[in-house]
């Protein structure tokens, strides 16, 4: 009998494929973990063709099940499919074959859900962590956000591009140490 707490701990080993220092827990994309009771296949209703095809959606009758709810960072983030698969693989590795992963869109993910630990790890990795959303996330045009350089800690930095190597980052240059760096933009 496993506790929900242990599953959360296992999920800390699942990393973001694009930013391998961050776990899915650090990112704040895991919204819920639930244990589902023993499920038995229903002989009266054979799985539909779709379930058979997808195969991984429901592994009925394999003992206690785990249901994990995740929320995407950005609608089109290609890492989400990989993350779902990595969560499944991690739990299989730990002996849980009956895993259901569902996606929940609302409330929409925000960088405020990123853990403090996650922000620290991001900075050490060379990516400026997101500023708190309330103070900085604005829609006004030509707004310059004060982003701290993750290398020399200077606030004298300049936006180069609102979009960078992935949808969740923008690109800055530090005017003191002259390095360019990624900024995990507040969202």
């Amino acid at each position, binding site marked *: 009998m496993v506790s929900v707490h242990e599953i959360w701990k296992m999920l800390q080993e699942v990393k973001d494929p694009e930013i391998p220092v961050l776990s899915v827990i650090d990112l704040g994309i895991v919204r819920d973990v639930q244990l589902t009771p023993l499920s038995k296949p229903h002989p009266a209703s054979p799985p539909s063709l779709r379930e058979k095809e997808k195969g991984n959606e429901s592994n009925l009758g394999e003992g206690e099940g785990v249901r994990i709810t995740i929320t*995407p960072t950005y609608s089109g983030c290609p890492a989400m499919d990989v993350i779902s698969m990595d969560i499944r693989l991690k739990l299989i590795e730990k002996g849980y074959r009956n895993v259901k992963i569902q996606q929940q869109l*609302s409330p929409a993910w925000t960088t405020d859900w990123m853990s403090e630990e996650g922000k620290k790890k991001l900075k050490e990795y060379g990516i400026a962590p997101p500023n708190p959303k309330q103070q900085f996330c604005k829609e006004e045009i030509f707004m310059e956000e004060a982003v701290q350089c993750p290398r020399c800690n200077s606030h004298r930095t300049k936006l180069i591009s609102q*979009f960078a190597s992935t949808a969740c980052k923008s690109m800055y240059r530090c005017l003191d140490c002259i390095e360019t760096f990624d900024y995990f933009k507040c969202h």
Partner: protein
Amino acid sequence: MSETNNKSLNLCSPTGGQGAFAYTLHLADNALILGQRNAEWCGHGPVLEQDIAITNISLDLIGQARNFYQYAVTLYNNFNAEEKEVVDHLLPRLWKTYDRELQEDDLAFLRDEHQYLNLLITELPKGDWAQTILRQFFFSAFQFYQYQQLQKSTDEQLAAIAEKSLKETSYHLRWSSEWVIRLGDGTEESNSRINNALNELWMFTGELFQNAGFECGDYATDVSNLKEAWNKKVEEVFVEATIPSPSQDGEGQGVRWFQSGGKEGRHTEHLGYLITEMQYLQRVYPNATW
């Protein structure tokens, strides 16, 4: 054509869900077609940063389209036979030969041109950078107000997708507004290009605010109500960009007549070429996965 027209007008049946199905397709098609169009810039952007920006916007749009298509599929697969019949003209013929439940890719990759319900402005060629920018600005401003309202939809899933997408759309709006200003208030060359783009695109903006038959239930946003906020936003950015404001009543630079038909499946010649390329793989290798 008139038959398609009548059918889509008859779709309004808020309780039955068929109207919501067509509406969801419309929202998905807007995002998919513009996403596909913008993706043509991949590797061709004017500078690397902006190449990445426009393709990131594509990615967001295609992600939004997927959320809508997935929901449309859920709606359809839960319909009874009679309800399925009402929306039958919107479903791909090829899929009907597959003998399996509907999937999101079937809707994106197997429908024919007249079954797409996207706004005409999303399918127009990418043109030069000014045309791409101005189209994105017009569309993002529209989508921003539409999603803002859609968050109040009685349909919880549509409201959730709107809430999620709105955050990305506000980035698109900010980025495209800044570029309209940069081009308008830039050099003589950039200014003349953005004005040419305006002449090309303005006649396609009327359709944004015309409700189609499927936009009638509480699940949908009344687009005619968005016009005022949209005009205000355009005006605001155009003043800053030193672009003469087109009027809507035929005075000054504006046009008297607006194009429409996309939401009823009547498209410009450009859509056919776009979907030919986009659908190639699924047409030639049905059910291919990777």
